[in-house]
């Protein structure tokens, strides 16, 4: 078994020439009283797709809210070189509010405009195109509250596309999506990274994280950051606070299964 102290040393991602969009050093995040997440050392470059892993309460949403500027850093430094677009985690929208899917996608334009400017024709076209990219072109004029949960989640992704920001934060965007929509979103994320945007994507799917290349593991503190190779058994154990059991499943291939910490007799 590794000494857990080893794991706190962040593994730097492979050095690339891509411009730095975001840099955090010794960052601690919290809600005023004390820090709920410490030791964040992070450099996000254009074209990065970073999977943010961690248990419930691990600090993923807290980190995103700090990066967005909604929460002040408790300590450490945070340099943000560009605007952030965001797909929030929980469905907090009021479903009785009279807006169409297009209206909601169009809200992304507001963050790019000074307060006296209203979204124009070009923004409207952009919002329709974004709805098309998440496969909702034919639902543009439906009432937002009448859509299904997964469809609403995709409208919020479209809204983030309309924000057209160099940094995109997605907080568990795959939750509630069917297989087709999830595939489409994967493609979309790849495309966004290819366009030179930096993506931070919170997820609970370790296999997905391996595919994306870069991972950030959080469990009240930063456990690891770097190429998906850092996802060793001990890193996963430290991240999820449990014992990892290898299961070779004939159908799905190799899987890491996390068991709660009290299953030690295995």
């Amino acid at each position: 078994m590794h000494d857990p102290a080893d794991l706190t040393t962040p593994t730097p991602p492979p050095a690339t020439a891509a411009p730095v969009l975001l840099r955090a050093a010794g960052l601690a995040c919290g809600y005023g009283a004390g820090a709920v997440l410490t030791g964040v050392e992070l450099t996000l470059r254009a074209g990065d797709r970073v999977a943010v892993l961690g248990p419930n309460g691990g600090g993923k949403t807290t980190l995103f809210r700090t990066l967005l500027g909604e929460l002040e850093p408790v300590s450490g430094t945070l340099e943000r070189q560009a605007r952030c677009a965001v797909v929030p985690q929980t469905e907090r929208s009021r479903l009785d509010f009279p807006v169409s899917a297009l209206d909601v996608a169009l809200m992304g334009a507001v963050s790019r405009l000074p307060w006296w400017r209203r979204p124009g024709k070009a923004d409207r076209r952009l919002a329709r195109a974004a709805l098309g990219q998440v496969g909702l072109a034919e639902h543009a004029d439906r009432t937002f509250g009448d859509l299904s949960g997964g469809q609403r989640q995709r409208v919020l992704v479209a809204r983030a596309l309309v924000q057209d920001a160099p940094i995109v934060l997605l907080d568990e965007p795959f939750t509630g999506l069917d297989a087709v929509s999830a595939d489409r979103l994967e493609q979309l994320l790849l495309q966004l990274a290819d366009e030179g945007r930096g993506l931070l994507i919170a997820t609970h799917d370790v296999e997905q994280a391996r595919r994306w290349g870069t991972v950030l593991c959080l469990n009240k503190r930063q456990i690891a950051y770097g190429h998906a190779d850092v996802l060793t058994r001990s890193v996963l154990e430290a991240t999820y606070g449990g014992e990892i059991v290898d299961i070779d499943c004939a159908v799905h291939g190799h899987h890491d299964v996390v068991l709660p910490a009290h299953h030690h007799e295995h």
Partner: protein
Amino acid sequence: MHPSLALLTWLTDPWTEALTRRALLEVVLLGIAGGALGGWVVSFNLGYSAESLAHALLPGLVGASLLGAPLLLGGAAGLLVAAVAVAVAGRIPGLDRDTAVAVVVTALFGLGALLALSPDTPAGLQGLLFGDVLGVSDTDLALAGGLVVVLVGALTVLHPRLLVIGLDRLSAPALGVRTLTMDVTVLVLLAVTLLVAVQGLGNLLVVAVLIAPPSAARLLTRRMAPMLVVSSAIAVVGAVAGLYLSYYAGTAAGASIAAVLVGTYLVLAAGTAAAAALTRARTRPTPEPAGAPA
């Protein structure tokens, strides 16, 4: 007399005097303003705040009218006192915000009513409670016109940002919308609208113009911008209908307008509920007759 001519006379009769024509213009302007702003008051759940602000105005209005000062000044002073009192009361430990507002507003309203109804007070002060739309001055009309211009302008410019807050207040900062600035703006617009409208429509009834039309419009529309337009239209038509009612039934103007507006909402609500029940019944397959005993 030919029936259509009779109808025409019936329709034009109330507006032969300058007094009633001014009242007509006043309620049309207030209907546009109240209907549009009311859409946001309802969407932001500010109905209680609107009611509280209106009531808190009363002692200021009564005081101004006793001193012979402009009512607008008195109302503004009353609002200021209420705001300070609410802020102070909200700091008393163990008293939550809603309770603090209720205590302050009830105290102020009681004080205003006491002043208004005391025997030494000149007559006409009940106009402050129930409105005196037939007594509007040129200044009042100019103020109402200015209110419409400012309000429609502000609501048009701020519309996209207000939509963001209405849908999801917590995510608004991430979309570049300052919630505090927007809240203060809406409350200031609300206070100004109440100040201008309270003389015509009365302290007790002014809130009806802010709440009933958008509630009715919400039943008929599915998007915010059309809802605001329909709300204003309902407010204008309802207010004019209220003036007819007042003219022919001899009822107080403010109360008639409030009654028509609230009545419109109730009829529409019942109508849409009935329509929904009807479509449900139509789409349901006709049930098999229950097996009757032989």
